[in-house]
């Protein structure tokens, strides 16, 4: 079984978000980048399924410029076998999906795993685009993934419940908790990651379909109005008469 795991390079979850003075770009200065938290579920589950089968390969794929390589190496340290970086700024979801679809097709991957969504652009769309480009099913967001031969059984989250879905390879799934316990690199992994293959390839396809004109931060809160714990019922009156939300 050949697994392709797509990872996005995103600002650490504790990042205070700021923009360049013209508000046109995210301000990267001093920001720590990490593997998108949801992609860690995809990566760990692929490694677990490979180990359980006793054969197969896990390839990680990132569309990004050279500054994403530390996180690609981290994915190799966690246990991926090799990596591909498409050398281009990931200008939008459609552009990223084109790159993933092209690599998936060329390498004849059986299972293409992603995270539910990126925590920077929150698109929640690359998986569906890749599935459609390749003409194969997408299961998103998946909370559980088991394989038996060429058949996968997944739990897909829906509003208010879940669906049990079964698909044959090749397919795309986007992963989220509680699929597995994401692994962290150990010393041996870090040592071997240095020598694992990382191939850099040029981008293909059409340009992006969307462009960001401007970023903005949410309006600041006015400040908190404190109510005495002894008079907690007062809060309910304020919520009805002042805030008008109940």
């Amino acid at each position, binding site marked *: 079984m050949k697994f392709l795991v797509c990872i996005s390079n995103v600002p650490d979850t504790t990042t205070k978000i700021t923009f360049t003075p013209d508000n046109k770009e995210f301000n990267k200065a001093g920001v720590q980048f990490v593997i998108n938290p949801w992609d860690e579920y995809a990566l760990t589950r692929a490694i677990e399924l490979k180990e359980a089968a006793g054969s197969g390969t896990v390839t990680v794929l990132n569309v990004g410029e050279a500054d994403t390589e530390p996180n690609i190496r981290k994915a190799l340290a966690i246990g991926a076998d090799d990596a591909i970086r498409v050398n281009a700024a990931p200008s939008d979801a459609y552009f990223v999906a084109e790159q993933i679809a092209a690599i998936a097709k060329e390498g004849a991957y059986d299972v293409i795993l992603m995270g539910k969504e990126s925590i*920077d652009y929150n698109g929640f769309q690359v998986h569906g685009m890749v599935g459609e480009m390749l003409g194969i*099913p997408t299961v998103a967001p998946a909370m559980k993934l088991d394989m038996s031969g060429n058949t996968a059984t997944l739990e897909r989250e829906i509003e208010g419940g879940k669906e049990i879905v079964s698909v044959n390879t090749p397919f795309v799934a986007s992963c989220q908790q509680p699929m597995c316990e994401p692994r962290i690199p150990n010393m041996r992994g870090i040592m071997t990651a240095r020598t694992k293959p990382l191939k850099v390839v040029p981008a293909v396809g059409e340009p992006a379909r*969307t462009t960001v004109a401007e970023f903005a931060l*949410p309006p600041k809160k006015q400040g908190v109005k404190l109510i005495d*714990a002894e008079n907690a019922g007062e*809060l309910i009156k304020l919520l009805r008469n002042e805030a008008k939300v109940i």
Partner: protein
Amino acid sequence: MSVLVVVECADGEVKKSSLEVASYGAQVAAQMGTTATAIAVGEANEANLAKLGEQGITKVLYDAEPRLKDFVNNAYTKLIATAAEQEQAKIIVLANSNIGAAVGSRLSVRLKASLATNVVELPKISGDQFTVKRGAFSGKAFSDVVLSGDRKIIAVKKNSTEAQHDAGKTAEVTSFSAQLSDADFADAPKQVVMQDQAGGVLLPEAERVVSGGRGMKGPENWHLIEDLAKALGAATACSKPVSDVDWRPHHEHVGQTGITVSPNLYIACGISGAIQHLAGVNSSKVIVVINKDPEAPFFKAADYGIVGDVFDVLPKLTAAVKALN
């Protein structure tokens, strides 16, 4: 040319988020000098579909194929794509739900359309320039995105726009068939398992949310959260560590790595207000924080606060709500 709106139905009712989407679509149609048509998916009821006239929809297409009751990605995509071609829709509007995102992303490739998800406001249209405002960085920011090309798909964030109600207006419900075959249902779910809806309110659609953190001390105390939620007609939610240790199910976990909610009222009980938690809730209109530590970071993001013990404060709040009603 028209605007096509995808409305999701369950148990015969149009989902609240789809009423918002219908209203959004009708307003976009008005901006563009055209009309809005809806296509219904899920288990629909014709009388309720006709009522979409109240949101400004003129016509509703409905395919009574019984296998469309549950979500099937391929079948839904083909159904909506066929409707879009028939109606020559330039704009397709859907909810930023699990169904909307799954279908919208496939449609964007099939129909060669540009796609914006997580959209929070009506578009700005000036000449050929079509710009939408969307949430980014997990609730920490917004971006204005320009959509190129002839066709556009917009997925509207739940509870970010208000549904208009023009009482008494009705839409014409027309039967519609996309000639779906067995092959289109190949990825149909084997089984659908719905949660036991104790409080009756679904978190992603909720207008009011009562949420508990580690300060609640253990699952045996959750009746305090549930009682207040029930009195308010609210859904229940929790912080990540609470679902990590299985005090509460994972689908209640809100935050940067859980679900993002934007209710009118979010009440946080015994939650410290870590940046990852705030990211998922800070677009709530009114935030109430109950925490015994006056230095808890959540107070900085709150509109109202009570410095106190949840075990003392929550029963008082529940009693006060019951006294109001």
